């Protein structure tokens, strides 16, 4: 699996005194994202002196460093060498499963999504379950992972106004993205279900968050009894 580099990329942009942004494209595209994940994995396996952390996004990887130890030029040389060695190629991510209950009281926007898509609520659920999702990046709040892969027929622009107080565990969609919320928060995305699956898992020191960027995600439907049993605090 070799992703063809977009013309003119990678580009390196200094970020203040302690990071280098490595861009693989300027749009959301699978090829750029695969290269982000590949470089991220290569840095984790073979970090340079002064490497502090890396932050993957859709089309870029932020590489943070300790300026007492190295500098932008040193990091750029090291990253370029990793890319030249073929590092910017993504390996297949792990498959993670997220349980979701679509009962109407847990999915207040299911009917509206159905109406806007010209489908029945059951067809919306089927489409959501059919999606093969990939973890693009984290953002917004701790543990909030953007999952790309919402099927075409249920892609809707976000709502005009955000709804406040949306509970943690809400499964929300907008455009090609799906997200499982981890905090009570406002959102303008469509709430199509609720999940008891814990994404913040502090008890697991090796994997305190359910997903790594680059993982694949499948949703599995559960009945109300299973949701109630699992969602207990």
């Amino acid at each position: 699996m070799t992703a063809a580099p977009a013309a003119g990329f990678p580009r390196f942009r200094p970020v203040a005194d302690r990071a280098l942004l490595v861009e693989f494209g300027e749009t959301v595209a699978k090829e750029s994202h695969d290269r982000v994940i590949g470089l991220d994995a290569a840095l984790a396996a073979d970090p340079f002196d002064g490497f502090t952390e890396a932050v993957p996004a859709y089309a870029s990887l932020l590489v943070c460093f300790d300026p007492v130890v190295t500098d932008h030029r040193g990091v750029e040389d090291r990253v370029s060498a990793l890319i030249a060695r073929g590092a910017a190629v993504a390996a297949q991510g792990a498959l993670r499963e997220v349980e979701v209950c679509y009962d109407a009281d847990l999915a207040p926007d299911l009917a509206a999504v159905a109406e806007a898509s010209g489908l029945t609520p059951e067809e919306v659920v089927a489409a959501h379950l059919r999606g093969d999702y990939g973890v693009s990046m984290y953002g917004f709040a701790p543990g909030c992972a953007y999952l790309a892969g919402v099927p075409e027929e249920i892609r809707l622009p976000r709502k005009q106004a955000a709804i406040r107080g949306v509970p943690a565990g809400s499964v929300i969609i907008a455009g090609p993205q799906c997200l499982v919320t981890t905090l009570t928060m406002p959102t303008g995305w469509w709430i199509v279900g609720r999940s008891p699956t814990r994404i913040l898992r502090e008890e697991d020191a090796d994997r305190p968050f359910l997903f790594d960027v680059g993982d694949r995600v499948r949703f599995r439907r559960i009945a109300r009894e299973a949701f109630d049993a699992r969602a207990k605090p």
Partner: protein
Amino acid sequence: MSEAVLSVGFAGPHVSIQDAGRPGFMRFGVPASGPMDRASFAAANVALGNPPGQPVIEISMGGLVLECLSGTVTFAVAGGGFVVEHGGRRAGSWSVATLRAGERLAIRPGHWGNWTYLAFAGRLDARGWLGSLSTHVISGLGGGRLVAGQTLTVAGAELRAEREGAIVCPVTARPRQEVRVVLGPQDRFFARETVAAFLAGPYRLTDAYDRMGVRLQGPALPPGASLDMPSEPIVRGSVQVAGDGVATVLLADHQTTGGYPKIATVIDTDLDAFVQLRPRDMMVFRAIAPEEAVEQARLRAASAARYLAAVAAPRDASARP
């Protein structure tokens, strides 16, 4: 080991437990958090003989009142020009004293600064998350915000009389009106005149100021018409410009990615002094090259180490062994 038990009589907004933070989790949407003014935080700890990253209480302009229910504990206050009232005496921040059972400690804003740090000779007991007690305020994860009526425990509380007295306030702890940035990483979304307007300023800090960031008032920075960027990583110090052309400097509890362009990034060296500017204070940005930013970071690391080594010496020379 003895302990000191403190009751919170009053806590303003944005008063929280912080330690050195939890770096390394930005990839999971978790910023490092930790103190807004990291240098003053370290000074408060080191002045007591603590390791520099021990948990403290970060106090905002809202202030804090504690009552000591039991025990004896020496404390340090560093950061800003706050007023410290305790045992019938009135001092400023940048001082070390001892709190005893039955005494009240009130810390409120003084002539300058936004944030001050209250450290104890002992270990503040609080809930941790991902290896750190730092509070991430929006999620409430970590040690948490302080609320009136709450009780705090300092484990292993000690009287360290040899530490009492004044802490030297370094000039770098003062608010800084000229804040250095490296342009980018998304300055290309702005017209040349817009970048010039950004650097000409001046900007005023607004009341929309919390641990996530501070919104600025000043020259508008309309992004170019064809703004269509995928979400990009954010760092502490990112100067993000929303669609309405208003700039926000993102701080300790920042989001880790976002779809608004960052016209510039404040160098880490200037962030501690930037956060001590108050709402309505004026400031300007000055662009420097990335190489100069790295050079400044190295100079600051060396001067901060020298300063902390001096502060770590007990103030009362006669008490030295």
